[in-house]
């Protein structure tokens, strides 16, 4: 793969940015990728305004997204080399300052298309279309209420995500970045009558703002140091071109340049839910399931990975940046997997597994296998979409029931075969079962971790893989296998609506013990055509993505994310890693099979017998080894992990939420209150304060200035 790469930057961590060097003008019809979702948004708005209570908004959205997918495919077919497609003149400022230096700030509304862009756009628009189709059936109960609002949100998301991925400069990327955050806020809060959904939407927005601040500062510092925010341009003064030319000296910028990778990282961690900003993603499952599948699993949360992959040359401005990314990714993967084990809500388990898998992707970026990271993003997008959509089908059919203890034997129920078997494929991929897509993509990252000699990180990830396989199949064995039994959820459609929003909280809580109210459906209704069709198509996609490794590698290695590093070639990958990873995956599945399918009843029966006869407790261990494993598991693994998970959960709730989120919010309020007495409405005191302020200012400038000068010079950032 490295022969395609011609340039290097020097020593240490290396990235090649050859792709950016020669940019040709692309076809202007590519602009329709952006305009179509926008048109769809407007039409959905019109539908809402005209109170059209049909599925029209869904068909508009699905249609326009499908066309924009076709446009992407056409662009892909006609792709020869990196393209620049100007759409609108946005910022185009030139000036000459008083010392005669020319300056400019150029950020057009333009696309920069290389193979990385195409890779991302293909699955974003492809999955977007399919999931919108799925949602057309899933959101059916809302046809009279928020149907148009939902699809308008999806259109906004696709518009913003396309902006983010296709942008040819960081300002437009930031526009998309904020746009997807806004769409996420819009859609998480879709069931706005439910306080928990509103709170989750707010939390997602606020936590993301922290990351966004980092990204914004990073972009400013890039502009400050390099004088451009464009990736590449015809004059050769784009960011990648400056970096590739080697004319730039690392030392020149000082801290303002060294901080850039860390600030970008903060932005990526916010959007992609990594430590310490992961807390919003599990709560984001308050949104409708198609939203969870599309935005919070497959596409938007990978924006952080995209950012770091795209900015790989920039990430090397500080040598510690990429190792930090790798370690934080690894720790997040482990942490999220341990929490995921303690959950009973299917969507929450998938949410934590998403956080965990995103951690894997960041490890991939961090150990410089952008190929592995992108490959995992690609395979994950499919199998996680499958998992969420099957979860959504269950929720839809079982009146909001998502508790894995309340549903069993789905595959034996009539009409649920497709759901059960597609979920199995998804689970196999997530668990990294040998020869599944997840196996290959995860292996690419794991092998690279060992290849760059980070064994501790590697073993931590292998352990995480074990946990992943276990909790993934815990869900499947509980829900899809075993004897048929189920308990309906308490909501008719698993979400609040205007008629009974009082108890509309089943989205992630265990339903109450008492019998469901009379008006609630007692029979599950299996998914119909749209859901089944989408499930099958995406599952096929997940299977096909298994063989996409070399295709993805081609995409990545011909973009700014290409890595020129000896350890990236396959010869250096330790051969034992795939074997070990495969074994671990199988082991995890076996453990899950054992405790959640094979012996979940006999365990109960034998425990009953044990309780009945106190003497059995004293029987030799060899006889009861089998049961001790259960007990051992219960007391030695689950409880500590449960406690650990709950400790982390409590940490999340009380330390992170209360101290950081609430505390940060309270500080300004408290300060505001302390200034309030000044604002007492009395004319005289205002006059005195004003005069005092003027006097103080004069005093400060005339009397104190000479003494404060040295301090002030430092404070004003090198002026004076």
């Amino acid at each position, binding site marked *: 793969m490295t022969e395609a790469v011609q340039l290097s930057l020097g020593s240490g961590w290396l990235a090649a940015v050859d792709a950016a060097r020669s940019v040709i003008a692309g076809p202007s019809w590519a602009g329709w990728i952006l305009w179509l979702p926008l048109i769809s948004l407007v039409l959905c708005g019109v539908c809402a305004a005209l109170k059209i209570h049909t599925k029209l908004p869904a068909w508009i959205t699905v249609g326009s997204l499908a066309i924009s997918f076709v446009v992407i495919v056409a662009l892909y077919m006609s792709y020869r080399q990196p393209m620049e497609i100007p759409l609108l003149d946005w910022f185009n400022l030139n000036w000459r300052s008083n010392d005669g230096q020319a300056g400019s700030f150029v950020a057009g509304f333009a696309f920069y298309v290389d193979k990385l862009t195409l890779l991302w756009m293909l699955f974003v628009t492809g999955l977007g279309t399919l999931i919108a189709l799925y949602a057309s059936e899933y959101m059916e109960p809302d046809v009279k209420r928020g149907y148009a609002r939902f699809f308008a949100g999806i259109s906004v998301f696709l518009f913003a995500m396309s902006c983010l991925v296709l942008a040819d400069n960081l300002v437009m990327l930031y526009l998309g970045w904020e746009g997807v955050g806004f769409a996420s806020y819009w859609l998480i809060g879709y069931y706005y009558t439910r306080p928990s959904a509103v709170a989750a939407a707010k939390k997602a927005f606020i936590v993301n703002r922290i990351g966004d*601040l980092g990204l914004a500062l990073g972009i400013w510092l890039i502009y*400050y140091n390099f004088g451009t925010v464009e990736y590449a341009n015809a004059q050769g003064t784009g960011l990648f071109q400056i970096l590739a030319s080697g004319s730039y000296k690392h030392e020149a910028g000082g801290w303002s340049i060294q901080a850039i990778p860390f600030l970008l990282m903060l932005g990526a961690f916010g959007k992609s839910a990594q430590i310490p900003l992961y807390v919003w993603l599990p709560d984001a499952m308050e949104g409708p399931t198609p939203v969870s599948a599309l935005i919070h699993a497959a596409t938007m949360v990978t924006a952080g990975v995209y950012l770091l992959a795209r900015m790989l040359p920039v990430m090397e401005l500080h040598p510690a940046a990429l190792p930090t990314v790798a370690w934080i990714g690894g720790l997040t993967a482990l942490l999220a997997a341990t929490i995921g084990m303690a959950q009973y809500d299917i969507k929450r388990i998938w949410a934590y597994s998403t956080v965990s898998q995103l951690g894997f992707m960041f490890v991939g970026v961090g150990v410089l296998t952008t190929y592995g990271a992108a490959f995992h993003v690609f395979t994950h997008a499919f199998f996680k979409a499958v998992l969420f959509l099957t979860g959504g089908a269950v929720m839809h059919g079982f009146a909001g029931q998502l508790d894995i203890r309340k549903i069993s034997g789905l595959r034996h129920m009539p009409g649920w075969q497709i759901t059960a078997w597609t979920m199995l494929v998804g689970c196999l991929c997530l668990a990294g079962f040998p020869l599944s897509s997840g196996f290959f993509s995860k292996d690419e990252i794991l092998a690279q971790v060992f290849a760059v000699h980070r064994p501790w990180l590697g073993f931590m990830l292998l352990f995480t893989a074990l946990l992943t396989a276990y909790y993934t199949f815990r869900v499947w064995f509980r829900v899809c296998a075993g004897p048929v039994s189920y308990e309906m959820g308490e909501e008719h459609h698993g979400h609040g609506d205007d008629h009974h929003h009082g108890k509309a909280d089943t989205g992630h809580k265990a339903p109450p013990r008492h019998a469901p109210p009379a008006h609630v459906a007692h029979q599950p209704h299996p998914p119909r055509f749209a859901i089944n069709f989408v499930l099958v198509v995406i599952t096929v996609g997940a299977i096909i993505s298994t063989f996409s490794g070399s295709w993805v590698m081609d995409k990545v290695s011909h973009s700014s994310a290409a890595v020129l590093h000896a350890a990236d070639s396959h010869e250096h990958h330790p051969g034992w890693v795939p074997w070990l990873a495969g074994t671990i995956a199988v082991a995890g599945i076996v453990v899950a099979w054992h405790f959640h399918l094979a012996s979940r009843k006999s365990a109960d029966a034998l425990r009953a017998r044990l309780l009945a006869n106190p003497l059995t407790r004293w029987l030799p261990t060899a006889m009861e080894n089998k049961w001790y494993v259960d007990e051992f598991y219960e007391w030695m693994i689950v409880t500590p992990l449960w406690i650990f998970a709950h400790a982390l959960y409590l940490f999340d709730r009380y330390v992170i939420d209360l101290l950081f989120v609430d505390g940060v919010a309270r500080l300004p309020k408290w300060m505001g209150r302390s200034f309030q007495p000044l604002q007492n409405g009395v004319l005289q005191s205002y006059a005195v304060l004003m005069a005092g302020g003027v006097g103080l200012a004069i005093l400060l400038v005339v009397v104190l200035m000479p003494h404060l000068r040295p301090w002030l010079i430092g404070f004003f950032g090198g002026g004076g």
Partner: protein
Amino acid sequence: MADRLPMVDKLWFILPEVALFLGVVVIFIMGLSHSKRVRDMLPMITCLSLAVAFGLTWWVYEGSRGQTLLSVNPNLMLMPMVGKYVKMSACAIGIILAMVSVGSVDRRLEAAVAAGHLPFDPIRANRGEFYAFFLLSLMGVMLTCNANDLIWLFLALELTSLPTYIMVAISRPPRVAQEAAVKYFFLGAMATAIFLYGFALLYGSTGTMILTEMQRAFAAQAKADVVNSFGIIGMILAMLGICFKIAAAPMHFYAADVYEGAAAPVTAFLAFVPKTAGMVAIILLLTTLGWSGHPSTGLPEPIMTTLWMIAVLTMTLGNLGALLQRSVKRILAYSSIAHSGYMLIGVIAGPANNGINAVLFYLLVYGIMNTAAFAVLAALERRGQEIETMEDLAGLRIKHPGMAVVMAIASGSLLGVPPLLGFFAKLYLFIAGIQAGQIVLVVIAGLNTAISAWYYLGLVTLPIMAKPSAQSETIVRSPFPWPRIAGIVTAVAVVVLPLFLGPLIRASQAATTPASLTTGVTISK
């Protein structure tokens, strides 16, 4: 040049103001007419004269006569082209503000007269005076841009402010308006005294009233290395006094009370018109110092320090003050204070870093988005009373979906949510600040933006997401459609104008040409 009278040449550039003055004359007389039809035409005539002034401004500056005059006499004005941009934006926003104010003045009196309870008595009618003062105040803003003389500048600033005192008083019947007006007047008079004192010191230290000559005098002093420190103190006093007009610390205390006391259309007016005049005046005064003091921002250090402190205090006190408010008008009043603080970043950054155009651009954007927010308040009412608190806005979407969306867009833009107009204006300011090396200042502004998210998001979510409260159930549309139309127009502008960012920013850049605002001589201390 001696045989040419600058005054005669300058008369050409105040043609738009003359047009407005003619409008004022007509409105003054028409407002006293006994015919209701004639009285109802007043807002239309206001808009018409503003539209004429808008066109005239373009013609005056772009026409060959204006170009010739400017090239023949470069000392005509300190910043000749700033007038075109500011006057045109003042006229454009003035039209919208006039639309917002339709029906608010003399509402009860007109209703009583229409119902036949009262005969029409000119001595009780205030509508004509209101619109006349409206135009006079806008005239003040426009004249400020052409000022090349401290006396002219002083008179223009006072022409901007004096009518607003009366507008506050007559804007609505309750006593609060009168209390607000009295406060506003007395504190305004005090602020005027302060900047007048500053002007006196400026004259004393440079020996001239003419701004272009003052620039040369400062440059000469700097060259000889004998800058008169009374000049610097005078400059600081002048700035602090003018801070009253832009509602910046420490002269901001009046803002919350006065904004709350006045009727919503007048509050919208107060937040834009005096602010624009004050900003232009500060920029003109600082330009006399030559913009070549501080290596990156161009200001002498004492001035820079003062501005820096004013900016930080203004944005912080503004945002913290807004956090605790329940009254929408008070929140917007504090937000107006905070926005002045943001704008001062651009002033500190100076023309070399595009700071001045960023301020001018921000003024226009702020005018648009702020007017949108106030238009919502003006368009809704409860039993003839204005709506006041946040609770009144809750769940507005049910009954007044359009106004709910306008409010959400306006607040989102005030917060600076991309891709709305306010975001780009703020971005442009912050970029200027960063370019000037004012990282700390920009970080403080960023933190302030984060704080402001607390209350702006409330204004976004309450109308759109919250359930209607008992209070908001009783809210009805005001009987006049124009405030609603103004709100929709401005909200659409907030959403659509980002697509025309290039031309808008180029226009604001053209306002600060020629770039030779700098004298190239450094006032070091």
